[in-house]
């Protein structure tokens, strides 16, 4: 029996040594990221894609036919959403199992024949925290940036953490407007766009003229932005500039607020 115990132990140790030794390498090496992405999307969704790695930001771009978005049939829309989700999931899988250093994941779904794209920006650490059950699903969803913008305005650049937080702030305001039709009308359908981050202030741009910004609209926007800012600060414990300035479509300063 002693012989059996010791031989079993030796077999287990050998297997574990072989296993751990062979499991060190990543599934998607850095130099094969693009091929891997194309292979996965082609195999699973029959989709073509483009992948770019800019410093610590990875971009994955797919194309969606316009018919899937303009049809009244619910199934078509579902298809489009599924394609966007696949693209997002694929790029997340690649980012998690690669040896490249990646901080931000950007999934872009371009609509064919239109100057329009949907951009989803996620932070890799937030995804990991969600997978490790450190944050809830609701908390994680609040950390995803969803932007709709003209494709021509798209820039492939490395996203910094501060820029991500500012975009998140803007994205949360915009999502609120889109989800809530009452609020949207109350605020005259004013959406905001992140313009730049200066040393002491965050500069946002609106898609409306100065006249649309009545006093009550300004106060409401201020309230929404302050609440979002505080929530983001609690989540990330990071100090952004506390001053936010909003300019109108003609670059006139509409609103300047101080968060604290």
């Amino acid at each position, binding site marked *: *029996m002693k012989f*059996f115990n010791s*031989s*079993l132990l030796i*077999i*287990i140790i050998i*297997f574990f040594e*072989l*296993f751990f030794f*062979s*499991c060190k*390498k*990543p*599934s*998607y090496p850095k130099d094969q990221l693009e091929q891997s992405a194309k292979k996965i999307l082609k195999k699973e969704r029959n989709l073509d894609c483009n992948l770019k790695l800019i410093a610590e930001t990875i971009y994955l771009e797919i194309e969606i036919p316009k018919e899937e978005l303009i049809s009244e049939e619910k199934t078509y829309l579902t298809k489009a959403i599924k394609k966007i989700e696949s693209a997002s999931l694929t790029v997340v*899988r690649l980012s*998690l*199992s690669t040896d490249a250093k990646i901080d931000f994941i950007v999934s872009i779904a371009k609509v064919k024949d239109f100057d329009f794209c949907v951009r989803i920006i996620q932070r890799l650490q937030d995804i990991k925290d969600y*997978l490790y059950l450190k944050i809830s699903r609701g908390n994680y969803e609040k950390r995803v940036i969803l932007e709709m913008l003209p494709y021509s305005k798209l820039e492939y650049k490395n996203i910094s953490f501060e820029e991500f937080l500012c975009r998140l702030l803007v994205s949360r305001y915009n999502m609120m407007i889109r989800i809530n039709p009452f609020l949207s009308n109350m605020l005259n359908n004013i959406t905001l766009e992140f313009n730049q981050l200066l040393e002491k202030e965050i500069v946002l741009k609106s898609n409306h003229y100065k006249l649309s910004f009545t006093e009550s609209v300004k106060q409401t926007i201020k309230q929404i932005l302050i609440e979002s800012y505080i929530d983001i600060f609690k989540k990330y414990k990071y100090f952004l500039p506390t001053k936010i300035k909003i300019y109108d479509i003609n670059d006139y300063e509409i609103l300047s607020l101080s968060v604290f």
Partner: protein
Amino acid sequence: MKKLKIFIRNHWLAITVILVTVILIILAIIGLSSLESFYRNLTLSTIPIQLLLTGLNAFIFVYFYMTIFRGGLASMKKSRIMPEEINVKFKDVIGLEQAKKEAMEVVQLLKDRTRVKKIGGKIIKGILLIGPPGCGKTLIAKAIATEAGVPFLHIAGSEFVEIFVGVGASRVRKLFKKAREYAYAHGACIVFIDEIDVIGRGRTFSFMGAGEETNSTQNQLLVEMDGLESSQVNVVVIGATNSPIEVLDKALLRPGRFDRKIYIGRPNLKEREEIFKYYLKKIKYDPQIDVSLLAKKTVYKSPADIENIIKESALIAARERKEFITMKDISEAMDRIELGLRHDLNLSYEEKQKVAYHEAGHTVVLYYLHPTDDVFKASIISRGGALGVVHHHPREEYYTASKEKFLADIKTFIAGYVSEKKKFATTSSGVENDLQNATKIAHMMVWQLSMSIDNSEIIGNFTAVPEEELSESLKEKLNNETIKILKHCTEKVDEFLSSNWDIVEIFAEKLLEKEELDFDEIDQIFRSFGRSREKDQQMLMQNLN
């Protein structure tokens, strides 16, 4: 090939478990390697906690299984030992030359079993080791197993006994089945049953059904040792017992079962010396320790007693923070073992005096009158329930006891009573034990050994027949003879003490002063008053007898 067959038959469960484990590990590795690296790392990181939880579950399951189920009523603990695990050779057994010689014959037969079988002979079925406790029976059995190089199954007789009838017999069957398997694989197997008298006693046949369990167990043992199946494999049974051989069932002792009976007795002087040297080598000791004196002091002691003395002396030395043990430690150890721990009682001076005169009486009579024993210590320190003690040993081993020796014993016992009476004109309850012992010896002399004081015509061992078959007149005669012996001894002791009362007084005073005296001091005291044992003994023996 045979060994492999038996091995697979006995370990099929372990082999299956190992194979399944290996397959599962391979499948797990294949599964994990097909995962993406992130998810693989995630899974691997949960392994420690999973192992911990699995281990905890297994522990809880095993705990409940062992405590509640325990594998059934007839389960036995694992008792197979391989020869290399025992590793006791004949050279490690000290003394017991005669027993070793016989054991070596058995070993030789086991080793040459093939040749013996060719001739048509049979190896011994059973060996019975008889002797007092602690003399080396188990050691000899181990040595036989090691030297023969065969598996050794060890079990105690009491392990067969259960409240339910049939369980003991079932255990015997299981034991011998295992033994036959090992014998088949290795050529022979030794089964050692310690305290075999538990199941080997004479079978009782009662209409009430008492003793059924032991009977059925013993019957099974008899069948296993010499039944229909038993001749095909070489299973040797070694039994050990402290009881006299007459206690065991005759069917067990007949040739074909326990063929050989080896008596393992207490060691003689030379063997005791060797045993002391052996145990002293295991600890740090003063080289000036006189081993021959120790051997003389430990007459009738078994090797286990000697080991105990050395162990106890090591403890005493350690308690006193010594680097090695000395003769004093060994003496103290012997006192502690023989007499017990001292406990200080607050005796009044009168009580102490009584005890001192009582012990002085014993000492003087023992010193002068006893033909075989020497007094080693006289003490009025209370130990083990006694207020005082005179400790004595035979000078050497005697295998018979003469009438003179018995009379001397009686005189020694009575001396305390007489001494108290002479000094205080009364006696105390302290004489109870002494009178009991004296009466027993006198009774034995008359009833069993025909040693009446005036060599009367009554001859015979009257304890061999039931007492109700003896006539009242015969019993009266025997009792009278017993009383005569006691009276005679009392008179002689009274006479002796009267003529040597000065010595008794001196001795009592010394005891009151020092509380404890050993042989040298006692001898010195007597010599300092112009008396010596050898000179006086001859003279007194002539006068008293």
